């Protein structure tokens, strides 16, 4: 099981640590050809504008879409979630536009409004998920094929559509690896 972590900018080191703790082999992705070796890809938190520009400049945008169409699963956290959504409220920044959803950036406010919360997610069992939201986005609207898995303040913060998984928060900043395990199980099917 080889999983890529997009390593252009942001918290890729933490995702690597989480995946390795789950027993996966991890490849840091900076060049398009590196995507040929992986069955799944994590797009980490960071600045979505920075990551999007670097994806275009270094030829990763089209290659990720191609690999997705060939069956590669993708998990996006925070900035990764923004980059996966088709619509971004009042922004024309570069994006992959694969997930049928409308996302709002910095939706809970600026850094001083960033927060931690306990989420109950049936798919991950009875224990709540400790979710860390940092200048986080939320999903305002989803298309018919999108499965909403958790909400905060009535806004979508975990969603799945086929081979795509997104969270508005950062499980990689905690020691709870259930979401990473869930993503790995998406690859096996």
């Amino acid at each position: 099981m080889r999983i890529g972590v997009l390593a252009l900018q942001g918290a890729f080191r933490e995702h690597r640590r989480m995946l390795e703790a789950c027993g996966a082999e991890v490849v840091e992705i900076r060049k398009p050809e590196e995507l040929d070796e992986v069955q799944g890809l994590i797009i980490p938190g960071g600045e979505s504008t920075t990551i999007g520009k670097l994806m275009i400049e270094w030829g990763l945008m089209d290659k990720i879409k191609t690999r997705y169409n060939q069956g590669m699963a993708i998990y996006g956290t925070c900035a990764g979630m923004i980059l996966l959504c088709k619509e971004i409220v009042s922004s024309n920044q570069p994006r992959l536009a694969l997930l049928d959803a409308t996302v709002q950036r910095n939706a809970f406010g600026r850094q001083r409004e960033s927060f931690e919360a306990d989420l109950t997610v049936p798919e991950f069992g009875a224990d709540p998920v400790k979710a860390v939201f940092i200048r986080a986005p939320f999903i305002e609207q989803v298309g018919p094929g999108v499965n909403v898995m958790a909400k905060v303040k009535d806004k979508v913060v975990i969603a799945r559509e086929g081979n795509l998984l997104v969270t508005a928060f950062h499980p990689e900043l905690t020691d709870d690896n259930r979401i990473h395990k869930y993503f790995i199980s998406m690859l096996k099917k």
Partner: protein
Amino acid sequence: MQQGTFRVKAGLAEMLKGGVIMDVTTPEQAKIAEEAGACAVMALERVPADIRAAGGVARMADPTIIQRIMEVVSIPVMAKARIGHFVEAQILESLGADYIDESEVLTPADDKYHINKHNFKVPFVCGAKNLGEALRRIGEGAAMIRTKGEPGTGNVVEAVKHIRMVMSEIRMLQNLPIEEVSSFAKNIAAPLELVLETRKLGRLPVVNFAAGGIATPADAALMMQLGCDGIFVGSGVFKSGDPVKRAKAIVSATTYYNDPKVLAEVSKDLGEAMIGIEISTIPANERMQERGW
């Protein structure tokens, strides 16, 4: 739901890793920085090179400047407060700044004590020349550390000195038998529990960026290869001949810091770098890195 926890404060720094934070003084410069791929901007009245040239007392920027910059960019906006000036920090927090740099670039307001950063919901970044200084700042609540370098000089030598010092002290600490650790903590004047945590992690407990004197893509890659998590560029972008091109090149160099072919490509045709200052020509009492206790 909890706000302002240390995990949330240090978490934003984690998201900035592998990125470039650029000093800007106008909304136009802020837009240029964002367009070039900066992961955050530092809103200032003057860049360090101009603060150095102007002399006198340097203070927190006018809130109007910070607000106007916050209005035009979607990336995090940082701002500087003077060392020990907790009221400037309160003002910056109320404006909604995303990070406060308690910075030696400004004239210190307290000659003995730094701000108690635990008191704030907004996270702080502080400069450090060595491990003891870094851990004292973290003990006071800093959620991010940067090298001090010598700001506004375009000369990377001091930043190199500081990251090498921190990394070498961490390696030394990891090789000490446990009974020698408390004495090591005393000698570097750092809290023992943070020394123990650093020893266990093999790195600082928070993100550590490079700052002070970075002027070229190669400088940025050098600091990354020496172990920094990301880059602050102060005067290096907007005091150069072609800020847009140089800013983009430094962003790419910070991502591809281990790839000399990419570094060669992005280093081409950047125009004039900022004019540098040899450190030995700066009188000791004018060196900003000596500020901080």
